[in-house]
């Protein structure tokens, strides 16, 4: 996935001289997760800028650059560090087109690694996607595999609207089924690990049917796609698994069509439960599918606690939590 994201930026920097990359450690070093590796060598210090440790300034500068005709891709090193930039994202980036009635806008992409399962503790593991979905004017995207990562990132960079692009870092190097004791699997074994060399896009706003099924619909995204697959398999369920991919805009039609078919739905995300994006999904599905539902919609999520360093796997919504919810939904009378 790291190479796929790198390739997306590489291709866009070649195609469009206005694409610039900025962030902490992204230049000479190539990023703490190596996602921008080699870009500064290839495109120079004026197009791949190392920045001071000032997330608010990174986003603010990206806005100014965007207003002046560039197409900036800003990296926030960890999603947990994005909060100082939130005023610039919420009040400025998201609102500029609106408040100036379309005269000013900034096509900024903000890439940021999110999620846990990497022994990151409570300041390197968060999944803050729901916060951004609550702000009108920003698109919010989270790919779960290398193919989507590249296609969605190219689409995000080309998009004239701002995009917060969340990268689930637990699956940077391979899919992860939620079992930390199993040997890690590389993307080369996975169908969606195959990434074309050249330019292509995956449209923002389209959910992906990862697996077709008939008994229950699992609506999920990011790392949880693989956990949910494994959990359904472990209890022998024919589940239809949807990867949301884009939270804003949300492909609600694909989701409700699936739930209308199966009559049962479990929503899973790694982020904390309360006011998580699952709440929005659950409400929207219920409004559209009420008469088709055979059971309440259940949500599986991280506990409403910070992500603790020592109890990472007790916190993480692993296969057992997902399987528990699936059983409850299937056995509902």
């Amino acid at each position, binding site marked *: 996935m790291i190479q796929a994201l790198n390739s997306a930026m590489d291709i866009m920097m070649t195609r469009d001289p206005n694409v610039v990359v900025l962030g902490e450690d992204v230049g000479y070093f190539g990023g703490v997760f190596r996602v921008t590796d080699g870009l500064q060598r290839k495109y120079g210090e004026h197009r791949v800028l190392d920045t001071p440790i000032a997330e*608010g*300034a990174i986003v*603010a*500068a990206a806005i*100014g650059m965007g207003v002046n005709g560039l197409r900036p891709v800003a990296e926030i090193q960890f999603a947990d560090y994005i909060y100082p930039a939130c005023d*610039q994202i919420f009040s*400025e980036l998201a609102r500029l*087109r609106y408040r100036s009635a379309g*005269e000013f806008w900034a096509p900024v992409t903000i890439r940021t690694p999110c999620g846990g399962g990497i022994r990151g503790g409570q300041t390197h593991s968060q999944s803050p996607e729901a916060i951004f979905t609550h702000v009108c004017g920003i698109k919010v995207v989270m790919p779960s595999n290398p193919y989507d990562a590249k296609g969605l990132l190219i689409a995000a960079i080309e998009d004239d609207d701002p995009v917060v692009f969340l990268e689930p870092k637990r699956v940077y190097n391979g899919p992860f089924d939620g079992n930390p004791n199993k040997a890690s699997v590389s993307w080369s074994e996975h169908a969606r690990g195959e990434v074309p060399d050249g330019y292509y896009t995956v449209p923002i706003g389209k959910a992906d049917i990862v697996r077709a099924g008939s008994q229950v619909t699992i609506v999920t995204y990011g790392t949880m796609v693989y956990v949910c697959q494994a959990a359904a398999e472990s209890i022998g369920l024919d589940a239809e698994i949807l990867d949301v991919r884009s939270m804003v805009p949300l492909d609600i039609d694909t989701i409700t069509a699936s739930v209308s078919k199966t009559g049962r739905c479990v929503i899973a995300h790694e982020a904390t439960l309360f006011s998580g994006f699952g709440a929005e999904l659950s409400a929207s599905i219920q409004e559209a599918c009420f008469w088709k539902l055979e059971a309440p919609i259940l949500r599986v999520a991280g506990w409403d606690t910070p992500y603790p360093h020592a109890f990472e796997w007790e916190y993480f919504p692993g296969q057992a939590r997902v399987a528990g919810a699936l059983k409850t939904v299937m056995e509902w009378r």
Partner: protein
Amino acid sequence: MPRRSRLHTPKPHSRPGEKPDFSYLETSPAGAVPRPDVNARVRDIGNLATDLVRVLDDEHRAVGPWHPHLEVAELQIGLKHMLLTRVFDDRMQRTQRQGKITFYMRSLGEEAVSVAQAMALRPGDMLFPSYRNQGLYMVRGRPLVDLMCQLLSNTSDMCKGRQLPVMYHWAAGRIFSISGNLATQFPQAVGWAMAAAIKGEDDIAVSWLGEGSSAEADFHYAMLFAAVYQAPVILNVVNNQWAISTFQGFAGGEQRSFAARGPGYGIAGIRVDGNDFLAVYAVTQWAAERARRGAGPTLIEHVTYRGAAHSTSDDPARYRPKDDYEKWPLGDPVERLKKHLIALGEWSEERHAALTAELDAQVVAAWKEAVTHGTLGEGPRLNPDTMFEDIFKDVPPRLVRQREQMRSEQT
């Protein structure tokens, strides 16, 4: 000597009912501060951040090395733009009091900042203003009717009814959209300037904020990025002494000048008499040339005074002496330029009164036209459908559905 720690709470020198006291204000005589080469190293010009650059002396003569030697016609144009700003402000304040607009902010006493600076810059330079920079619009020639339609949120409102009055924008005139969240424009201007340098263009960015908002992180972000990348930008702190009811000591102005923050970051800092049109013009010209030839950014502190209330929503008599502004030691920018022109034999009280009347008539005529595009109370009104536009470039299906629902509520 007390041997205990202590907490200092800044206090203004005078409060309502007391005599105005500006003994805290450090000034320099007109003409006394040297004008360094625009390529000077920051470490060699530290005095500019604590001295006060002034050109107009007490006899209304222009003196010293910062004298910009403008043509008389230029000076008269500057006076006219400042007067227009003031007349416009007065009229709009009155319309607010009559309930015709919801809110207004005057720039009384600070007109030289926007007018002299806009005149010293090039038309291609990008301006990132705060909410008290209406003089920029006067200099760059935005029709008054357009500004008034914004204040009225009417059918011709440039903001389509989305912004509070005075939050103008003008892409064609290269003036950025004003945000109600203070100081956010400062680091954005730096980003704009960085992009200009990346593209190899020689337009510069210029931004303004009040000394109160210099407390925000965005001020420091802007200073840091401007210094690190030596961005072609001019950053202005308009120190008008008051942030609503809070005097400048609470923004950190008691211990050190705001301009002195420049050298702290490795940026040239200049403290200028913000009510001296010629001095403001001269330091802006210096900073613009410095930025344009790659010699680095400049922080300018304009020492001025907010003559009016913060906005139509507060009453300054509740927190400062009523006659504070009259006693302000640096005087009034319009009066000072007027007297300078009179001293040059190029202006008179009669011409001044005639010009004021002429500008007032212009403003009144513009208002008559503006209200034909609608007022808050009377139509025509903007189509409320427009509220769903420009959130994204295209209106997404979810907002199409909400728009339908809103329409159904109207019938």
